[in-house]
């Protein structure tokens, strides 16, 4: 189910939140309405954590993560790191990495199996990503843009990319990611997909400017119409419980 939401009258939801299959991070806002929307959707399924990174609220663009781990930039303070370690489930590895390109959310786009990264990322970072997130890493560009983390958003079910992506690029990416991809827009024609929406396997949150057409495209490509959160999380929980025992 795709929901329309606004952060303090701003439609760029993907900037102020990070949604994965195991947890959700939201920024600290003036009013509680942003947080409460996420709460109402996700409360009994996954933890929703309020945080800041490096003292800022643009947490969605600074960190990258999936159900296996979370990567934070070197500018994250120790307190924030500790807070996150405490709040997130134990199966999630929280790692602070030293990387020149500190806006990890703009440089890395990932789901639980594959990640696309900025072509100029360090070799060590790439290895760390492969370790912490447990994904296969590919260096790619999208429609000629090197900030892959901004111009595409994908989950394990499907993905949405920059509208100017050519058909050959779309095919190539789709082969790499092994998910169906579609080129489209969000927030009434905005091309910056990942900052306009945030998505996981059963739900998505978009800016309130998103038109009905865009919403229907999102729902169809991410297969959100008949997604049942419980089934997905139960599968994950089994693995979590295993670790306890």
């Amino acid at each position, binding site marked *: 189910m795709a929901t329309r939401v606004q952060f303090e009258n701003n439609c760029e939801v993907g900037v102020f939140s990070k949604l994965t299959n195991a947890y959700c991070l939201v920024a600290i806002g003036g009013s509680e309405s942003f947080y409460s929307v996420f709460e109402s959707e996700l409360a009994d399924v996954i933890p929703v954590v309020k945080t800041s990174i490096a003292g800022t609220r643009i947490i969605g663009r600074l960190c990258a993560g999936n159900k296996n781990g979370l990567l934070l930039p070197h500018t994250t303070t120790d307190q924030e790191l500790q807070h996150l370690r405490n709040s997130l489930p134990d199966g999630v590895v929280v790692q602070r990495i030293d990387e020149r390109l500190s806006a990890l959310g703009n440089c890395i786009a990932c789901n639980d199996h594959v990640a696309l990264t900025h072509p100029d990322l360090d070799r060590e970072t790439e290895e760390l990503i492969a370790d912490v997130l447990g994904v296969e890493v590919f260096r790619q560009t999208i429609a000629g843009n090197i900030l892959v983390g901004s111009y595409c958003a994908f989950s394990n079910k499907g993905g949405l990319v920059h509208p100017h992506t050519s*058909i050959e690029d779309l095919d190539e990416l789709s082969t790499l990611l092994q998910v169906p991809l579609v080129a489209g827009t969000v927030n009434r024609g905005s091309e910056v997909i990942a900052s306009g929406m945030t998505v996981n396997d059963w739900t998505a949150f978009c800016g309130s400017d998103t038109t009905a*057409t865009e919403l229907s495209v999102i729902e169809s490509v991410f297969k959100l119409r008949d997604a049942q959160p419980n089934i997905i999380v139960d599968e994950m929980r089994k693995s979590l419980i295993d670790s306890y025992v």
Partner: protein
Amino acid sequence: MEMEQSGMFMPAQTVGTVLCCICGVAMPPNPANMCVRCLRSRVDITEGLIRHAAIVYCPECHSYLQPPRTWIRGLEPESKELLAFCLRRLRLPQRRIRLVHAEFIWTEPHSKRLRLRLRVQAEALHGAILEQAHMVELTVHDRLCDNCTRAQANPDQWSAVVQLRQLVQHRRTFFYLEQLILRHGAAVRAIRIAEADHGLDFFFGSRSHATKFVDFINGVAPIRFRNDKQLVSHDVKSSVYNYKHTFSVEISPVCREDLICLPPKLANALGNLGPLVLCTRVTNSIALLDPLTLRSAFLDANQYWRAPFKSLLTSRQLVEYIVLDIEVESAEVHIGGSKYVMAHAQVARITDFGKNDTMFTIRTHLGHLLNPGDYALGYDLYSANNNDFDIDQHKNLVLPETILVKKSYQEKQSKKRGKARTWKVKNLNMEVDTTSKGRNDEKRNTEYEEFLRDLEENPEMRFNISLYRNKEYQPSEAASTADGDDIPSIPLEELLADLDLSEDEGNQNGENMDE
């Protein structure tokens, strides 16, 4: 593009389709990511453009006002100059909007509306460029421009007048000047032309036109003039003074074919030119010819007016003679474009011929023209009563009895009298004051006849004059071969066919057949 040229491999890039974010129709992606119709329904790029404007038009002189004060002429309806003028009036914001196309939509001329259709391009949101049509309606308001109001308020308002005068008893000079003025178009700017006794008045709207006219006359006649002005009104605040200017121009009284007795000082200055001289040509200088020695001199206008003199005898006093015998004395002499031959001749006055035996033996310069039995016109000094100061000044002056001036075709031409000529001249439209005393219409007509005859006889006089073919002339059936070639007439090549712009018959184009 450069990468392709440098030989690198570029994979094919086909543009995919996205859905329009508003209406969901598949379209190729564009910067706004909306289909054209949704974009157009949301963004109106012609928002700030004006749709109605007004322009001002003067119906008298067909000109349009460009504020604040310039009036532009020559803008034809639906022409591109008019289109450019209208576009300037619309004040399009050049920074934001680009004009791609503009055209007129036809409106009735009397509707006083001009309609334009423009196509403009401007940037809509997110860098997408949109092209849109825009209609503008211009209302045409009628208003008389300043010049037309002034002309209408007082059509006779003149501010400069040129008064041409020549103190002689005939109007030949003015007939000739009239033709010259017509040929050169010197009086096109004149508001009014009026006839006065001894001359003509030309009224102009501005002093510069009058000065230009006076300059023209200066080049064709020996004149002296003075310039005066009279204050009409005066604006105290801006110190603008309105004057009426008057140019009094006096033409020298010496005419062609006049007999002149030069004052002794002038005769000495010209190299002891025999005191009796004939005036052969008057342009802006006077050409004098001594008929007894075939010497000639030229007098500039300045030279003449420094020591002005009058003619002794004028062409009205010409008397007809018949040549009884002629004996060529000297060879041909070319002076100033004409040739003369000195000859001894025995002549008798027509009035004496057959009645008594009065004959004169004289020397004449017309040896090349005259044969025994010809008629000639000359001055009868034998019986003339000269009351001239200059003649008395010359001591020991022996006057010849007769001086022949020109050959006469009078007898032969009397047969031709009443026949139309093959050519005609145009006239200036002058206001003639028919009520004043002292006008003699008959005298006027005979003088005009003589002027036309002069034109026929003298090719050099025709030089500066435009002659037109006379359409009403029909050569008579009784061909005048008997009259022969003695009578000088104007050859056909010299005549201009008059440009006829009337709509009946086929238009005869004015081919210039000038020599």
